[in-house]
C-alpha cells in the first residue's frame, strides 16, 4: 500500500477523528471561557491568556515543587486563577467602566495584564518548556481499530461534564438567567433589579473554571512556556468569531471544527505549515462571514434550504 492510500485508510481517518476530537477538548474549554466573557461583559478578554498561564504554573509548582496530590494542585490552581481574575475585575475593569473608558483602553489593559503575567512567570519559571507531570504519555487501549488513551477519555469527559453543567446552570439557575439577561442588556437588566457587577464576577469565575480545566488537560499532555497561552487564546478568539460573536454554542462548534480541520490537515499539508490554517480561516471568516457562520443562513445562501 503506498503512503497516499495508507493515509485514506478508514482506520487512519477514524484515528485522526478521535485524536482530533480529544485534542479539541481543551480548545473548546478555552473558547467557552472567552466566548462567555465576550457575551456577558462585552469584553475581548485578552487577559484570559494570563489567567491560563497562572492556572498552569500554580498547578505545575504544586505538583512538581511541593509534591501535592493532583486534586489539591488543581484546586490551588483554580483558587489562584480566581483570585487573580477577581483582582483584575474589581481593581481594573470596574475602574475603567466607572470612567466610561474607550474600548481602546479596555483592550490595552487586558492585553498588558496578559503580557505582565507572561513576563512575571518567565522571571520565576524561565523559558524552558515544562509539562504538568513528568510523564506525558498515558496508557492506551485499542477500541476497534482506534487507539484510545486514558488522557483522551479524561479530556472528552471533563469537557462534556463542564459543558453540560454550564448549559444547565445557564438554563435552570437564577444566576444563570441573570447572566443571560445582563448579556442582552446590562442597563435594562439593572432596571429590573439584577446586579450586573455580580453577573460579571460570576461570568469571570466560570471562565476561570474553564481556563483552569483546559490548562490542566493541555499541560498534562504538552510542555508549556509562559507565552504559550497567548497562542492558545488566539484559537479561542478565532473560534468565537467563526461561531458568531455572542453565541457560545456556535463558538464551541467552531472550536471542534477548527481542531478537526487542523488534525486532518496532516494528510495534505506539511506539519510546519499547519499553524497557518488558523490564520487563513481568520481571514476567510472576516472576509466572507464577518458575523460568524450560522448554519441555517449558510444553507440559505448556498440555495440548499
Amino acid at each position, binding site marked *: 500500500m503506498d503512503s497516499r492510500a495508507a493515509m485514506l485508510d478508514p482506520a487512519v481517518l477514524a484515528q485522526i477523528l478521535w485524536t482530533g476530537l480529544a485534542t479539541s477538548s481543551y480548545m473548546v474549554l478555552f473558547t467557552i471561557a472567552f466566548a462567555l466573557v465576550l457575551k456577558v461583559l462585552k469584553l475581548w478578554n485578552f487577559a484570559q491568556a494570563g489567567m491560563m498561564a497562572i492556572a498552569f504554573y500554580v498547578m505545575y509548582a504544586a505538583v512538581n515543587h511541593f509534591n501535592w496530590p493532583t486534586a489539591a494542585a488543581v484546586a490551588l490552581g483554580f483558587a489562584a486563577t480566581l483570585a487573580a481574575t477577581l483582582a483584575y475585575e474589581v481593581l481594573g475593569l470596574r475602574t475603567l467602566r466607572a470612567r466610561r473608558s474607550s474600548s481602546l483602553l479596555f483592550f490595552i489593559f487586558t492585553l498588558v495584564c496578559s503580557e505582565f503575567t507572561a513576563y512575571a512567570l518567565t522571571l520565576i519559571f524561565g523559558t524552558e518548556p515544562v509539562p504538568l507531570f513528568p510523564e506525558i504519555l498515558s496508557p492506551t487501549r485499542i477500541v476497534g481499530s482506534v487507539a484510545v488513551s486514558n488522557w483522551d477519555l479524561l479530556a472528552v469527559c471533563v469537557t462534556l461534564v463542564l459543558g453540560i453543567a454550564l448549559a444547565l446552570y445557564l438554563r435552570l439557575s437564577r444566576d444563570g438567567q441573570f447572566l443571560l439577561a445582563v448579556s442582552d442588556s446590562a442597563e435594562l437588566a439593572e432596571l429590573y433589579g439584577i446586579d450586573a457587577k455580580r453577573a460579571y464576577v460570576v461570568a469571570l469565575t466560570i471562565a476561570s473554571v474553564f481556563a483552569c480545566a483546559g490548562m490542566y488537560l493541555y499541560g498534562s499532555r504538552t510542555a508549556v512556556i509562559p507565552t504559550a497561552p497567548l497562542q492558545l487564546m488566539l484559537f479561542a478568539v478565532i473560534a468565537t468569531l467563526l461561531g458568531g460573536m455572542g453565541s457560545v454554542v456556535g463558538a464551541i462548534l467552531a472550536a471542534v471544527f477548527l481542531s478537526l480541520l487542523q488534525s486532518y490537515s496532516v494528510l495534505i499539508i506539511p506539519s510546519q505549515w499547519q499553524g497557518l490554517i488558523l490564520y487563513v480561516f*481568520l481571514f476567510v471568516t472576516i472576509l466572507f462571514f464577518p458575523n460568524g457562520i450560522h448554519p441555517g443562513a449558510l444553507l440559505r445562501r448556498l440555495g440548499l434550504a
Partner: protein
Amino acid sequence: MEYLYSILILVGIYVVLASSFNLIIGTAGLVSIAHPIFFALGAYTAGLLAIHFGLNPFAAAAVGAVVAGVFSLMISLPSLRVSGDYLLITSIGFQLGLLQVIKNLELTGSQGGLNNIPTPIAGPERGWIFSAVSLAAAAATVLVIRWIVRGPYGRAIRAMRDDELAFLALGRDATRMKIMIFAVGCAFAGMAGAIYAFYFQYVSPEQFEILASGTMLTMVVVGGMGSTWGPVVGAVLLLALPQAITFLRLPLAYMAPLQGMIFTLLVILFLFLRPQGLVAPEAPSPVRARRK
C-alpha cells in the same frame, strides 16, 4: 563609543515606530497591535533586496516602506469595512501568521533569521553616519506626522475618532481615511525596519512577536497617546530604562522578563493614574479653533 551609537540608532528607530504607532492608535483610534510585523516587513524586504540584488540602501528602505504600506491593506481592507474590533483580531492573526511564514521560508532564513545583510558603510564613520540617518529619519517622521495631525486632515481624523457617526453624517468616508492612516503608519514602521536591518545586519523572527507590540504600546501610553511629542519622550525614556537596569548586574535570563514586567507595569499604572501620559495631547488653540 560604538555602544553609544547603537543606542542613538535604536532611539531613532523607536521614535519612528512609536510615533507612527501613535498615529494609528492614538490619533486615529484604530485598535491594532501588529506594528512589529510591519517593522519586520521593512527589515526583511530591505535585507533581501540588499543581499540578492545589491540595491542601494535608500531605495531598499523606500521599497521596504512601500511593501509594509501595501501589506497593511491586507489587514485594513477586509476588517475595517466591518468594524474597528475586527482590525484588532485581524492584526494579531496577520502578525502571528506572517511570522509563521517567515519562520518556515528558506528565503527569509527560517527560524535562524536573515544574516549577512551587507552594510552600505564600513569603517570608523559607520556608527555616526547611521546615528545621523536614524535620528534624521526620526525627526522627519515626527515632523511629517505633526504636519498631518495639525492640518485640516488631522482635524478630520480626530473628528472621525471622536464621533464617527457625526463624521459619516457630514458625508465623509471614514473607512477610506482609516485605511489611509493605517497604511501611512505602517509604511513608517517599514522604513524603520530597513534602517535596523542595514545597521545590525541581522534580523530574526522572534524580534517581532506579540511581546514586541507591548514595548511599542508602552512607549505610546507612557509618553502620551494622541500627542505628537509623547511617543518621542516615551521611546527615549523606555530605551534608557534597560540601560539603567543593567547596573543591577542581574543574569541575562532575568533581565528581559524584568524589563518586560517594568514596561507592562508602567502601562497599567499610567492607564489608571495618568491616562493622558507624560505629555498630554495638545488642545486646539482658540485661534486655530476660530479658523476652523
